[in-house]
């Protein structure tokens, strides 16, 4: 059984919500990134979204864009992302979702992508700029595998379209809290609550919220509404803001714990 499904099963039993961390692979460099990812998983991340750095991340805000640029500068690529994931799989059992722009996969070769993902033990694939209409080839390549295609839904997604999105998707539904790119704040909790409820009613998969969640208070407010929360820029911001690389894993782990506390109801902020 796919690690993602297993995780949600277990969380459900424990009546807890998934903390999903987005971190760019190779940011700020391969080795530090490995330590950061390991620390995050060990600190209590339920699912890891491993971002493949791309030169033109049009769906991301400035924080993740800068992380992507750092990773690329240090020599990161899709192939090395697979290496990183493989190494991580040696030390943690956390489900890993590969988070990529389509061009990287397309250029690498979709069949190679499929086989390498299986080889290294990646559990899901989220292609941010690949709507289901364009995903036929990718679906075909992954059809033999256990790997889930994770889908995004947006506040602008119609109900009719939501059904279609969920068809053939697996793992969980990534529900975007608001229009815009990653990393920008200003969440309207009550609007999100209403929208999430609607989506959950239509969606057989776990529904996780992402975009703009960065504090324990956000986590505390939003966790009850959904099956999990996705936090990205808040982690990447720590990497950007820390000069001493050796401190990064520890700081990331602390952030995980802080968010975890928020989600588990131990903190309710202003």
């Amino acid at each position, binding site marked *: 059984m796919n690690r993602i499904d297993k995780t949600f099963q277990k969380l459900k039993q424990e009546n807890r919500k998934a903390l999903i961390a987005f971190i760019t692979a190779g940011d700020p460099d391969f080795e530090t990134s490995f330590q950061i990812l390991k620390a995050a998983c060990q600190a209590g991340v339920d699912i890891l979204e491993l971002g493949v750095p791309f030169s*033109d991340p049009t769906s991301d805000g400035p924080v993740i864009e800068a992380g992507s*640029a750092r990773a690329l500068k240090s020599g990161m690529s899709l192939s090395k992302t697979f290496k990183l994931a493989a190494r991580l799989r040696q030390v943690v059992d956390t489900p890993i979702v590969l988070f990529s722009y*389509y061009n990287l996969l397309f*250029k690498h070769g979709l069949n190679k992508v499929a086989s390498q993902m299986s080889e290294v033990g990646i559990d899901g694939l989220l292609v941010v*700029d690949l709507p289901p209409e*364009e995903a036929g080839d990718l679906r075909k390549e992954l059809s033999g595998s256990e790997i889930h295609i994770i889908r995004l839904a947006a506040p*602008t997604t119609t109900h009719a379209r939501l059904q279609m999105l969920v068809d053939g998707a697996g793992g969980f539904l990534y529900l975007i809290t608001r*229009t815009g*790119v990653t990393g920008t704040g200003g969440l309207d909790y009550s609007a999100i609550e209403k929208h999430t409820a609607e989506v959950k009613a239509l969606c057989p998969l776990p529904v996780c919220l992402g975009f703009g969640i960065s504090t324990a208070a956000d986590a505390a407010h939003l966790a009850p509404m959904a099956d999990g929360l996705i936090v990205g820029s808040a982690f990447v911001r720590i990497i950007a803001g820390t000069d001493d690389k050796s401190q990064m894993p520890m700081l990331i782990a602390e952030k995980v714990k802080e968010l975890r506390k928020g989600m588990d109801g131990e903190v309710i902020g202003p």
Partner: protein
Amino acid sequence: MNKEKEKLIGAYPDATGHFGSYGGRYVGETLIASLAELEEAWKSAKNDPEFMTEFRSMLRDYAGRPTPLDYAGRLSDDIGGARIYLKREDCAHTGAHKINNVIGQGLLAKRMGKKKVIAETGAGQHGVATATIAARFGMECKIFMGVEDIRRQAPNVLRMQLLGAEVIPVTAGTSTLKDAMSAALRYWVAEVEETFYIIGTVSGPHPYPEMVRDLQRVIGDEARAQMLKQVCQLPDLLVACVGGGSNAMGLFYPFLDDPCEMVGVEAAGLGLHTQQHAASISGGSPGALHGAMTYLLQSEEGQIHEAWSISAGLDYPGVGPEHALLHDLHRVTYQGITDLEAVEAFQKLCRFEGIIPALESSHALAYAIKEAKKRSADEIILVCLSGRGDKDLTHITEYLQTNKLKS
């Protein structure tokens, strides 16, 4: 041209917005609804005679169409080969073919009740055109432009500002057109309900490539009628420069089912053998960027390369998806012209015809001059002179000085 050819006009894109394996809609989920809304709106508008009448009268009364078909007699005589005709988009309001497209999209934005428009720009021509139409329609306007291009194209920045647009400097990536387009897409994702994104060329997600082509085909429709009326024959060869490819698609499209050769001229910068060029088809490979599957300048690993050209309007690492298809079908040939060749052609047109062409258009011209030499005087080459070169004066003067060329 003996065997029965597939008819191309009207055949692409298919119902899902694809040109063969190119095109489509490679965007984040947030934009899907808006693109669907746009597709519907465009379908309804283009079948609405009232809309099309308003579009055509604005082209005439505001943009100054039809633009002339002009025989470059002194240039042709000097070359001593095929005769070169120019489709004079430089005479259109704001100085380039870009205005055709923005009038159409502006009218569509109005029809859709959008009060704000945004656009990306490289050379500034599309930015000026968009600021122009926003002023004309009383819409709020933001133009995204790389800081590098802001530096290179200062007069166009002044023009946009005088027209009331806000020019938003983009510092990400290479600070040029591709980053401006990324920035515009990001802004659009956030403000998608109120904002109409006016893309400046035949690229981007469906329905943009089709819509922009349909709005620009007036170039070719006019030129075809003018050729038949003024010269009583069709041209043997059509030549247009290809940045995103809108002036080229606009010229080529109505001739696609005619027995005319066609060449799209990409910017070969310092040479196709170097990394400094912008020839996505001649020097790139397929991939997905900014919403479409098409030819891109990219690394083996799929990272997008910075494009290079003396001409800011060609300085983009992608190309409209319909060009990718026409290339694969061998219906259009794509050739590179270097910075130096373009500058020489620029000077030649100034001196022989009294027309200062845009550096972009000078690429098409340079290829036409080369090709004319190989052909006889009973052949006709029709060149799309996509814009005027007033915006390039300082830049070209510096280039001539730096390269110690005679001005």
